[in-house]
Each structure stands twice: as C-alpha cells, then as structure tokens.
C-alpha cells in the first residue's frame, strides 16, 4: 500500500516537473509576449496542481495537507487573474502580437 501511494505521488510530481520545465522552456523560446504568457500560465496552474497533489499524497490527512490545498486554491485564484491583467495592460499599451512568420 505504501509503495503504491509513493508511486502515485512520484507520478504526479514528475508530471508536475515535466509541465513546469516545458512551460519554462516555452517562456524562453516563444517569439513574442503573448505566446509566452500562454506558456507561462499553463505551467502556473496545472504544474502547481500536480505538485500539490503529489505532496498531499505524501503527507496523508493532516494540517499540512490543508495548507497545501489552501495554497492551491490561492494560486488558482490569483494566477489567471494576474495573467488576465497582464495581457490586458499589454494590449491597451499597444503591444501588437507578432503575426507574419519571420524566416
């Protein structure tokens, strides 16, 4: 039983790691601001969820898990709001997305 829980939590953690790394790679490599926001916000929400679930499995049912899920709810509330505000500010400031493909 213990190994199963460890395995599942390790699975979640590695998924979280994968999402985070791809998000970070995306933030570096994408051509312009709007695509980067796309990459960063994915890694923000889903990667956090995977990490929190992975850690929660490790710590069983106690105050620590409650705090972990509080963090998750907070990040899920503030992350997208911040990205929305960011994109809207950039848009009103007149930042145009890169449309034609630079060869």
């Amino acid at each position, binding site marked *: 039983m213990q190994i199963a829980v460890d395995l599942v939590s390790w699975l979640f953690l590695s998924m979280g790691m994968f999402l985070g790394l791809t998000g970070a790679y995306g933030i570096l490599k994408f051509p312009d601001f709007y695509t980067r926001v796309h990459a*960063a916000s994915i890694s923000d929400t889903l990667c956090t969820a995977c990490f929190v679930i992975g850690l929660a499995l490790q710590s069983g049912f106690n105050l620590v898990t409650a705090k972990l899920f509080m963090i998750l709810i907070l*990040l899920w509330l503030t992350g997208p709001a911040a990205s929305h505000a960011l994109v809207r500010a950039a848009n009103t400031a007149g930042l145009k997305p890169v449309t034609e493909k630079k060869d």
Partner: protein
Amino acid sequence: MFATAAAALLVIMCLALVRAFRGPKIYDRILAVNMFGTKTVLLIAVYGFMTGRPEFLDLGIFYALINFVGVIAALKFIERLDEYDEQEER
C-alpha cells in the same frame, strides 16, 4: 524524489530568471517575475518535505499573496507611467 523535484524547480526558476534578464519589454519581465513567484511557493513546499519539516507552508501562502499584489502594483503603475510619458512627449 523530493530532491529531483527541488532540482527541477530550481531549473525552472533559472529559466524564468533568464527571461527576466533578457525580456525586451517590461511585460516580459513582469511575466517572468510572476512565474518566478509561483515556483518559489512550490519550492518552499517541496523544501519543507525534503527536510522533513513541512509545517512552514503558511510562508507559501504569503509568498503567493505578495507575488500577486506585486504584479498588480506593477501593472497599475505602468499604466500611469505610460500616460505620463505620452504627456511628456506631447
């Protein structure tokens, strides 16, 4: 297991840092700071588990809060700053 998670988070933070240094526009830097903040929250959680003492998670809650308010403050003040720059150019 936690060590690899911590290492991965550190790598992500380094990549976000590179974007913060290079970011041509202000908005890229704010995006990098936002991502950096959320990853720090996760690093605290993982570090707590790594050292076997995970009850310092209210630090994580606080970092998420500070990160959000920092991003909102930056956006609000840029908005006013662009307006003044335009006034100055006019």
